[in-house]
């Protein structure tokens, strides 16, 4: 039977349908997970999708990190389950302490929706093995609070350990430190990414299908595991 990828829905989550579609395109089974449940329904990997969880009025991800389902995600992640946080999901993983740093208001102070070139800096994480090292991919970016920040020592550490997964190329759209678009945890299992690979799985509805590689990669990872 095909691997099961959980897709979390918080009130205010928006890109859950897209994340589920991406999982299906990769021929995994997409399993809906509800914010209020203390249950990951036996999934092999989890996607925390984009959106505005609980409105994100306080701080992006600030309230979502306390959701019952997140307690389970944090435990599972510690045990090595692959977790991908996209956009709001990335913000939530940072707030929850699964990933270092934080995401702040874009330097330009506007929401930015554009097709963004990214360089795959680490093709060794659970979510990026299908890419060539240094491959450049084009996927949508759409966020108002996508400026990645962390203190200098953290940034140095991330760079030194190769934990910057993707970097913006062809211009920094939001003022992120070191053009960082995505980072991973020490084991390369938990990945947070500001742009939206799930919106680049089919040239009909996205700029390219460059994003599909992330969902195919995780299948390899869970099958191996």
């Amino acid at each position, binding site marked *: 039977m095909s691997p099961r990828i959980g897709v979390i829905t918080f009130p205010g989550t928006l890109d859950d349908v897209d994340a589920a579609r991406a999982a299906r395109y990769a021929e995994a089974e997409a399993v809906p997970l509800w914010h209020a449940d203390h249950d990951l329904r036996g999934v092999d990997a989890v996607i925390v999708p984009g959106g505005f969880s*609980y*409105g994100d*009025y*306080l701080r992006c991800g600030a*309230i979502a990190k*306390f959701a019952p389902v997140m307690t389970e995600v944090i435990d599972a992640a510690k045990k090595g389950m692959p977790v991908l946080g996209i956009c709001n999901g990335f913000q939530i993983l940072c707030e929850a302490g699964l990933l270092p740093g934080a995401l702040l208001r874009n330097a330009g102070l506007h929401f930015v929706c554009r097709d963004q070139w990214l360089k795959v800096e680490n093709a060794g994480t659970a979510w990026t093995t299908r890419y060539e090292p240094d491959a450049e991919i084009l996927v949508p970016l759409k966020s108002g609070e996508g400026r990645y920040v962390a203190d200098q020592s953290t940034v140095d550490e991330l760079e030194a350990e190769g934990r910057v997964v993707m970097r913006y190329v062809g211009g920094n759209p939001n003022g992120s430190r070191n053009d960082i678009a995505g980072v991973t945890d020490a084991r390369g299992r938990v990945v947070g990414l500001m742009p939206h690979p799930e919106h680049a799985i089919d040239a009909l509805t996205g700029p390219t299908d460059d994003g599909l590689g992330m969902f195919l990669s995780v299948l390899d990872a869970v099958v191996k595991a």
Partner: protein
Amino acid sequence: MARVVVDVMPKQEILDPQGQAVANALPRLGFDGVSSVRQGKRFELEVDDSVDDAALAKIAETLLTNTVIEDFTVRRVES
């Protein structure tokens, strides 16, 4: 040099989705006894002593506050 603080809060009768979101979250996080939360903005300005209260009020009113939906207070704090 003086430090000036301008507090900008949503008008009482105006809906405050931010504050409401926090208020709704608290019980879920096991914090009880908070009956209302309002969220506004706090500005900290460093100004020369040449800047008088009239100027500060004008800055607060024209630039920092949307007086249609927000109220503000200005105060100098020793720094």
